[in-house]
């Protein structure tokens, strides 16, 4: 009992700071995701062709609209660090929460690694253009991750304000490229003849297969709710920032597809490392090249920055609840950040960034995200069943329930099949990892968890228990 009181007092003494507004939430969500427009999405064109890439862009947009609607309702009610992890803890149970925490950490850490790989690749490409080919990418990968981890260590307000600025510039760069090409700034014309000559190089199966990388356009938007404990008004800021974020991304994704598909042959586009920068190269306009170089750098840094923020919050939350050693649940006495979690995840990100190919890292991130979206479907149903609308006050109630849930589950099932087409081994390896980790948690780690402390919301007892 004495221990419990002491622990409670310590938690009350050192908490994360509530300093963020809706613009920071927009910056966190769009900042993590916008890099998907600068790299990765184009592998969907490689998997199915230009038309398939566009359909994947919109279908994935529908999937993420469902994710944003569902997430906004639950998060505006469960306002705690860890986002979906805290939701799972209160709605499904500790093991599910542990798994969701791992989904988040894996998805964001892999995305962070992918961002660092892209920084190295971009600098290598630019060095090659300048006649200095063979640049060693490793120091840039390490420096990017270390610098952003340091920024995160020093405070959340500075971190996300930095994200707000560089994300806005990266978003504007896409708009400027789109408008410039429309108004004739490109020396090479837009050409969409492949749409009529070779519309579906793989047939209809290519459309399904392309959904795999279509998720990359928006992957991570759900990360907005990781900041729930650091937002001044979660019930207002989280739904507002998240929904504004998904709208921004839908616009940016469509413009990106249009410009890149018109300026780059689809066979090249399907395997390009930095498609928007390549599109700027094709225009032959030096100003656009510089702008898109800056845009790509800023988008990758903003994404890696947001990923460090989100992955560390999820790891911190699991440490605080003893799902992981409680040492990770510490808040920095001065900067009020989860500093141990931030530092611990740095070498893990480096292991992946320095040793694995980009498409593998992207696939692992997508898979973890996909498992998380599947969880959201039954989590939403259970949330409404255990606490119907009239039993607890929600900051936001999403319309048309359960339609978004059904659509989300259908699209998730299709996405599993899309990943299976070509990356089935990774899918099976990932599932084996989560099954073994689950058994490890249930039969070993859970003994260290305080049962009653896992439910902290001021809600009535759930129905059926």
């Amino acid at each position, binding site marked *: 009992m004495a221990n419990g009181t002491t622990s409670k007092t310590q938690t009350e003494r050192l908490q994360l700071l509530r300093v963020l507004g809706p613009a920071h939430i927009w910056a966190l969500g769009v900042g993590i995701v916008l890099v998907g427009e600068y790299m990765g999405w184009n592998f969907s064109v*490689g*998997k199915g062709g230009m038309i398939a890439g566009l359909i994947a862009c919109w279908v994935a947009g529908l999937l993420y609209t469902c994710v944003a609607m569902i997430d906004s309702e639950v998060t505006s009610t469960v306002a705690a660090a860890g986002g979906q992890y805290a939701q799972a803890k209160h709605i*499904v*149970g*500790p*093991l599910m*929460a542990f*798994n969701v925490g791992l989904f988040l950490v894996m998805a964001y850490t892999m995305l962070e690694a992918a961002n660092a790989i892209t920084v190295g690749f971009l600098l290598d490409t630019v060095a090659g253009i300048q006649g200095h080919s063979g640049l060693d990418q490793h120091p840039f990968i390490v420096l990017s991750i270390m610098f952003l981890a340091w920024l995160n260590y020093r405070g959340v307000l500075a971190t996300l304000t930095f994200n707000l600025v560089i994300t806005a510039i990266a978003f504007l760069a896409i708009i400027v490229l789109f408008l410039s090409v429309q108004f004739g700034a490109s020396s*090479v*014309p837009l*050409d969409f*003849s*492949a749409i009529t000559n070779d519309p579906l190089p*793989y047939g209809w*199966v290519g459309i399904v*297969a392309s959904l795999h990388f279509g998720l990359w356009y928006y992957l991570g938007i759900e990360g907005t709710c990781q900041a729930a404990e650091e937002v001044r008004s979660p019930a207002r800021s989280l739904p507002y920032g998240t929904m504004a974020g998904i709208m921004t991304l839908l616009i940016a994704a469509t413009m990106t597809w249009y410009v890149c598909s018109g300026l780059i*042959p689809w066979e*090249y586009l399907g395997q390009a490392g930095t498609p928007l920068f*390549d599109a700027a190269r094709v*225009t032959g306009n030096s100003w656009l090249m510089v702008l898109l170089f800056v845009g790509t750098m800023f988008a990758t840094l903003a994404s890696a920055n947001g990923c460090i923020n989100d992955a560390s919050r999820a790891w911190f939350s699991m440490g605080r609840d*003893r799902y*992981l*050693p409680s040492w990770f649940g510490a808040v920095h006495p001065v900067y009020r950040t989860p500093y141990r979690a931030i530092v611990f995840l740095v070498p*893990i990100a480096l292991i992946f960034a320095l*040793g*694995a*190919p980009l*498409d593998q890292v992207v*696939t*692992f991130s997508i898979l973890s995200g996909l498992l998380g979206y*599947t*969880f959201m479907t*039954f989590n939403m149903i259970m949330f409404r069943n255990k606490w119907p609308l009239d039993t607890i006050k929600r900051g936001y109630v999403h319309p048309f329930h359960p339609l978004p849930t059904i659509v989300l589950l259908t699209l998730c099932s299709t996405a*599993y*099949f899309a990943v*299976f*087409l*070509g*990356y*089935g*081994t*990774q*899918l*099976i*390896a990932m*599932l084996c*990892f989560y*099954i073994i980790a*689950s058994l*490890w948690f*249930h039969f*070993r780690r*859970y003994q260290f*968890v*305080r*049962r*009653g402390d896992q*439910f902290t919301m001021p809600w009535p*007892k759930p129905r059926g*228990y």
Partner: protein
Amino acid sequence: MAYKPPKQGLFGQVFDVLTLLVLTVGALYIPLYMGLAGAAKVPNPVANPTWQSLGQNAAEQQQWAALGITDPAAANNIITARFDYSFSWVALVVMAVLVVGYFVLVVRLSDREYREVIEERFGEKR
């Protein structure tokens, strides 16, 4: 009576973290090292390639040139590479069973744990 968890020593904490770390790294690197990862595209190069035989029109040729590729031979493998989407139905069923089985396992075990949490937080069901 509230459940009192045992205290975990330093060795146990480090062991737990290392276990998770090994599992995580293994999940990514084992398929890579075994050569099972990824769906590499297979090129089907055309003999004596020209831009016409590779199906590239004048605008696309300009685009390739702007990307630094002026020789059709250099673009041959990129243009002719294709994924192989043939698959085994058995493998598909195995994947489906694994995905569904995984979620069923996690939700069922979670529910057992959740009942303990609710019981401790709110008292026993009457």
